[in-house]
Structures are given as structure tokens and as C-alpha cells.
């Protein structure tokens, strides 16, 4: 077994490799392999994997790339993520990708798909519309058609047909991946000091640009390490972070929250990798139908999903209680309409349930954390002293 710190260093480098070298190397080893980039939040990666493709999560540039050209494409009042993506597209970062998928989450991501179309980046650029109708015969059929369009796009590139066997195999691998990630969260639920939130973040984010088979092995090793009694417990409060599902917070921000005395026991940073709650059936003749069902019935709390019949405020409170959290930190990217328009209602639910919370906004390249650290520190102290 590898040393934990070596594994973590490996994941840290891979998580922020904005040239996606590992994924590109994987592609270049065989002729019919394809690379498909997808943007936050969720995409059923199984359908790419099943046709000899690697789904690569593109989560923005964070604070790792200077944005010059990207700023010329966006006004100051639009979030930061798409300007970093455009910068990467105009540089060579996204060369060798065969296609790009823009899941339906907000108007910025939607229009970014149009910008990729205009720039003719990749062999296909597809806005992936999720149904907001959750009836199997209506929204389910729509969702299936959406997936089939992408399957067709990929077929045109490498001529590999999607078979039930291949898709079942891919579903099995991603079920394992989600289960292993959940296992890390469950261990951290009891012993959050064994693996920091930043390290957890790196381990999961690294999985966005490597083969899932390899990622599963890495997580298994991490789990073996953190199943041991390692690290030192601190007198920290336990918090859930909400609102960071698309544009990612800079790592310094996650670190600042922890250093200020808050164990992050759940979050929505890498929500796409944890989207389906529980397993997708991997033993049927219609695995595509199983992916449809899982989206309709096993999706998590998300600002991108219409929630009138299943209000996310109540679900967030349930999550915080299940994780035995002392409070919630609402941490959203500036100008993120989905997260920020949900916030008043989520706060109201916290008020009604007596759950303490604080709020702040960030950009993926925010460089100053002093204020956030002070705010989180005061939050932690106030809970320790008064609650």
C-alpha cells in the first residue's frame, strides 16, 4: 500500500492539472479512445465510459491560472467560472478533447455552450437539458432522448456502439466510486480529523480526470489509511457547507474554514461525483433506463432541480441533523443565481429548525481569506460558547 501523504500529493497535483495531462495520455494510448469534458454539476458519466471514453470534469481554473482573455468575454457581473473556461479554451488546455457537455444548471453555463459552438471547440458541444418533470413517461423519456443525442455524438467519433453489457459494467464501476466516496464522508463524520477537508477535496476532484478504475483503487487505499486511528482531534465545531456546487471555492477558503475551528462534515463541492444517492441497478437489460430512474428518484438537494414537491430547505436541515452538524455555512460564488436565490429560503428553514448559520460569497480566485477566517472563527466560538 502507498503512503498516505504520497497519495494525497498525487491527488493534489492531479486535481489542479489544468492541462489534463493524465487524461490526454490515457486517450493517446489507444486509437478509439475519446475525451469528453463536462461542466458542473452532474452528468451520467457511465454513458461516456461505456463507449471507451473518459469523462473529464472541468471545474474551472480556480486560482491557478491568470485570466486575461476570458475577462474580455464576460462582464464584471457574471460569475468567474466561465471566464476561466474560455481562457482555457483559447489557450491549449482543452485541445484533444473530443466533445464538451454543458449540463443545464444556469443561463451562464447554457450560453457558454453557445460560445463553444460559435468557437467550434471540439467535435461536439452539447447543452444537456435535464427534465424538470419527474414523471418517468414524460420527463424520463425526455432525459433518455437527451442522453441518446450524446451517445450518437460519441458514436460518430469512434464508432463504438453502446451495449447493455458495457453500460452495466460502467454503472458498476461508478456505483463503486460513489460508494467509496460516501465511505470517506462516513468515516469523516465520526473522525473528521483523520483526513482534512482539503485533502478530501483533492482526492475527489482528482477523480474527475483519471480513469474511474484507477480512482477507485486510490480511494480504497485512502479508506484503508483513514480507517486507522490517525490524526489528532481538535476542539472544532462541525459544519455543513452549502452553495459551492458549481464554481469551486479556492482551496485556501476551505482550509481557512477548517483552521478557524470548523470540521466540514458534509459539503456540495464535488456534488456531481456524489449525485446519485445509492446504487444504480447494474443488472438489467435496460441500463439506460436505470440511469433515467436514478436521476428521477435518487438526485440530491440541488439548486438546479425544481423542488416544489420536495423542498430543499427541509432536505438540507435533515442532512445537517443526520451529520450531527452544529451549523451550516452558506458559501456561494458571487453572481451565482441558483445558489443565491435559494439562500433566503434555506436560511428560513435553518431559523425554523434552530440551526445556526453564516453566509459569505467568493470567487474561485479569491485570494484574501482573513475576513472569512474571522467570520468562521467567530461562528465556531459562538457555538462552542453559547449553544
Amino acid at each position, binding site marked *: 500500500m502507498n503512503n498516505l501523504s504520497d497519495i494525497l500529493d498525487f491527488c493534489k497535483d492531479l486535481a489542479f492539472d489544468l492541462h489534463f495531462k493524465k487524461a490526454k495520455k490515457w486517450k493517446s494510448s489507444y486509437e478509439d479512445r475519446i475525451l469528453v469534458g463536462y461542466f458542473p454539476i452532474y452528468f451520467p458519466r457511465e454513458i461516456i465510459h461505456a463507449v471507451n471514453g473518459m469523462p473529464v470534469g472541468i471545474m474551472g481554473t480556480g486560482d491557478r491560472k491568470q485570466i486575461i482573455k476570458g475577462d474580455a468575454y464576460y462582464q464584471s457581473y457574471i460569475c468567474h467560472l466561465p471566464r476561466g473556461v474560455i481562457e482555457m479554451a483559447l489557450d491549449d488546455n482543452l485541445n484533444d478533447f473530443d466533445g464538451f457537455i454543458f449540463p443545464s444548471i444556469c443561463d451562464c453555463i*447554457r450560453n457558454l455552450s453557445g460560445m463553444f459552438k460559435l468557437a467550434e471547440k471540439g467535435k461536439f458541444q452539447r447543452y444537456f437539458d435535464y427534465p424538470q418533470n419527474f414523471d418517468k413517461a*414524460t420527463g424520463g423519456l425526455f432525459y433518455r432522448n437527451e442522453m441518446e443525442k450524446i451517445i450518437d455524438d460519441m458514436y460518430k467519433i469512434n464508432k463504438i456502439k453502446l451495449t447493455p453489457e458495457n453500460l452495466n459494467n460502467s454503472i458498476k464501476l461508478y456505483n463503486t466510486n460513489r460508494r467509496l466516496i460516501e465511505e470517506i464522508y462516513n468515516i469523516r463524520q465520526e473522525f473528521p480529523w483523520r483526513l482534512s477537508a482539503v485533502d478530501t477535496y483533492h482526492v475527489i476532484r482528482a477523480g474527475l480526470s483519471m480513469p474511474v478504475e484507477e480512482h477507485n483503487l486510490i480511494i480504497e487505499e485512502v479508506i484503508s489509511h483513514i480507517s486507522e486511528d490517525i490524526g489528532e482531534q481538535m476542539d472544532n465545531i462541525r459544519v455543513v457547507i452549502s452553495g459551492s456546487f458549481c464554481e469551486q471555492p479556492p482551496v485556501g477558503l476551505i482550509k481557512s474554514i477548517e483552521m478557524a475551528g470548523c470540521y466540514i462534515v458534509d459539503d456540495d463541492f464535488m456534488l456531481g461525483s456524489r449525485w446519485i444517492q445509492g446504487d444504480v441497478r447494474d443488472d438489467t437489460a435496460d441500463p439506460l433506463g436505470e440511469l433515467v430512474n436514478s436521476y428521477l428518484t435518487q438526485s440530491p438537494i440541488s439548486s438546479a432541480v*425544481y423542488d416544489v414537491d420536495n423542498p430543499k430547505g427541509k432536505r438540507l436541515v435533515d442532512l445537517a441533523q443526520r451529520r450531527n452538524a452544529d451549523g451550516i455555512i452558506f458559501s456561494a460564488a458571487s453572481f451565482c443565481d441558483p445558489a443565491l436565490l435559494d439562500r*433566503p429560503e434555506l436560511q428560513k428553514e435553518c431559523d425554523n429548525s434552530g440551526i445556526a448559520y453564516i453566509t459569505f460569497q467568493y470567487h474561485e480566485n479569491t485570494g484574501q481569506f482573513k475576513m472569512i477566517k474571522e467570520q468562521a472563527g467567530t461562528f465556531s466560538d459562538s457555538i462552542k460558547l453559547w449553544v
Partner: protein
Amino acid sequence: MKTEQQEVIKEKSMLIQKDMLSNLFKELSNTHQTGKKVVYTFVPGNLTELILAFDMLPVYPEINALQSGMRKKSASYIREAEKIGFSEDVCTYVKCDIGMMLNGNVGPTGEKLPPPDLLLLSYTGCFTFMKWFENLARLYPGVPVAMLHTPYQEDGCITQDQIDYMVKQLKEEVIPKMEMVSGKKFDMERLSKMMINSAESEDLLVKILETAKNKPSPIDAYFAGVYYIGPMFTAFRGTDEAVGYYTELNNEIQERLSLGLGPITPEGELKEEKFRLVVEGPPNWTNFREFWKIFYDMGAVIVASSYTKVGGVYDLGFRHDYREPLESLSKYCMGCYTNMNLPQRVNLLADYVKDYRADGFLINSIKSCNSFSAGQLMIMREIEQKMEVPVGFIESDLVDPRYFSYSNIKNRLESFFQMLEQRKVIMAHEN
């Protein structure tokens, strides 16, 4: 800067529209007596004919918000919404609407608006609509919500499976909820008959907007255009009143055209058309008159705009069709401007520049409307390269007066007009 406001000259069609709106708001304020049911819904992808076919009355929160902006009430409403946790960063239509509701829901005419009996979430071309109605659903607990998810024109066209998806939602989600709320059975024939009126009004609207292809243009297709689209995009499409209004408006404009007259502005007729522009993006409502004045003072006429297509791009040929009412409503929802992908938008705007013989292309980028704003700078580059016309870019907001900087906008526009002037001189010299 203060400008002396002159008395606005009103034509017959304007008075007709004023009466139509005034009667609607009166009717809305009397629902507690008449028992009429009220449906809150959105302008893009509105199902007005369907609502009217159930004898219900529509309320459009965006229209209330823009009216609040024009009446200088939006600033305080927005502050109210921010006090309960809405970020400064988010859509100001949402905040204005929620602030108005928290302040007693008094509408633009000073009469109290009734609460909704049904929230009809026609989710077309704007992700924020969904978040908006999720919020309204909590603010009006117990009020049913009918969700109509409109697929985006991802491939630049409307496909049969998308139409089927929408028709199914209309049949299984929207119509049953309307029947439940109104207590009436759905009458397809009644809906179908309304669509004959819809198509007639739509023909007239296109005829009106296309008069701007003439030089001089008898209309301003942006500032005046927002009045022309009023009845069509709101509560009247499909009614006899709308046909009457558009017939009168068309007569007035055809007469102006035959006399070679320019557009009517709040200060009378524009005497000299110096510049012809295509404008992308919604206008600012808080300082609408001041904003318009900058243009007409410089002799600039907007000959085509994307904003007047948010409630339907009728000039591309779509008409409500009485022979297939539900399919037609579905196609209508999917065809609205903000539901078109960026290459489609670029092509449409480029065609406008060509067909309307525009001297320049201008974007008014709105701080709180990502559906329009995200990608606009790329649209601008594309138009500049494709059409080889000068392009300009200004920024403001829908209803938040904190984001309207008069001097800034005026300076930028003056530079833009100088550029257009210079180009005219050079082109005249070259020819």
C-alpha cells in the same frame, strides 16, 4: 441631470392600450367580488390563450416589476427583498416582485393585486424563472404550481420529441391543474378559436415591426417597440381587443409610412433620422425616458431589437395555429428569443443588421439578466466580424436604479455616435 419633461403626445392606439391595461388591473382588483381566478405566469412562453380559455386572469410578475421601475418604486422593493436575505448579485426583477409582495402587493395602477390561485411556471429561456417561482411557492403556501419545462433549442431547431414532451406536460400537468383551479372543463374548441385572433394579431405585429425596414423608419422598434408588444406579450393575445388594437396601430403606422414620417418620441415626431441601429438586450426601466432621449436627441432610431422578440420571434414565421392548439403553444414557448441558442441569436441579429439597413449594432447589457448578458460580448464580436458595422456596448440594469449611470451611458453613446458619423463620412468619400 434634470430635464424638463414635455407633455407626451398620445395617439389613438396608445389610448386604446391604456384603457385595455386599466380595465385589466380593475378586473384584477375586483376578483374578490367576481370570483375570477388568477394565474401568475411569465411573459416568455406565456400561455395566455389557455389561461383565458378557462376564464382566468393572468398576472405577469416581470411586467409588475418593470412598471414599478418606471414608477420609481423598484428601489425600495429591492431593498425589502435584500433585507430578507436576497443577495445584491441576483436578478432584480425577482427582488422587485418579492419586495412588492412584502409591501402589500399594490400594482402599477395603485390597486392591490390579488394573490395567485395558480402559479404557472412556464420555464422558458431563463433559468431564474424556476428559482423565482420556487420562492413564490413558499411565499404563497398552498397555491398549486404547474410546471411547464420548455426544452432549449440546443440544436438550433425544434424537434418532434421536444414538442411531444411539451404537449404531454400540457395535457398531464398544466391543463388538469387549470381545470382544478378554475372548476371548468378544458374546451379545446375555445382555445382553437382564440388562436385565430392570435395569428391575426401576430401578422399585424410583424407588419408593424417590419415598417422599420423603410428609410426613414416610421417607428422606433425598441423604445416604442416595448409598447407595441405590450398587448401581444401579456394578457390580450388571442382576444378581439388585441386584434382591434393592432389594426389601429397598423393603420397609424402605415399612414406615417406613406407620409414619409419618422417615429413618434415622447417629445413628438423625430424630424431627422441620422442613425439606424439594431439593439440587443432589454432596456433599462428606471430611467426609461432619459435613456430614450439620449437616442432621439442624436437622431438615432432603433430599427430592430431582440428584446421585442422575448415573447415570440414572429418575424421568423411562427404563428399560433388553430388546427393544432397544444402543439402550437409548445412551439411558441420553444421559439422565444431567449430560448434560442447563441449561433441562432447571432444569425438573427446579423439578418436584422442587413435587412433593416442598420448603421450600427448596440448592446445594452443588463446586470441582472444572465439569460441575455452571458455571451453578449462574443455576440458583439461575431456581429462586428460578420457584418462589418460599428458595434457599441453599454451597461445598465432592469429595475435597480443603482446600476443606471446616466453620464457613463451618455458618454459611451456619444462616442459610439461619433464613430458612426465618422464612418458615414468615410464611406461617402469612398463611394
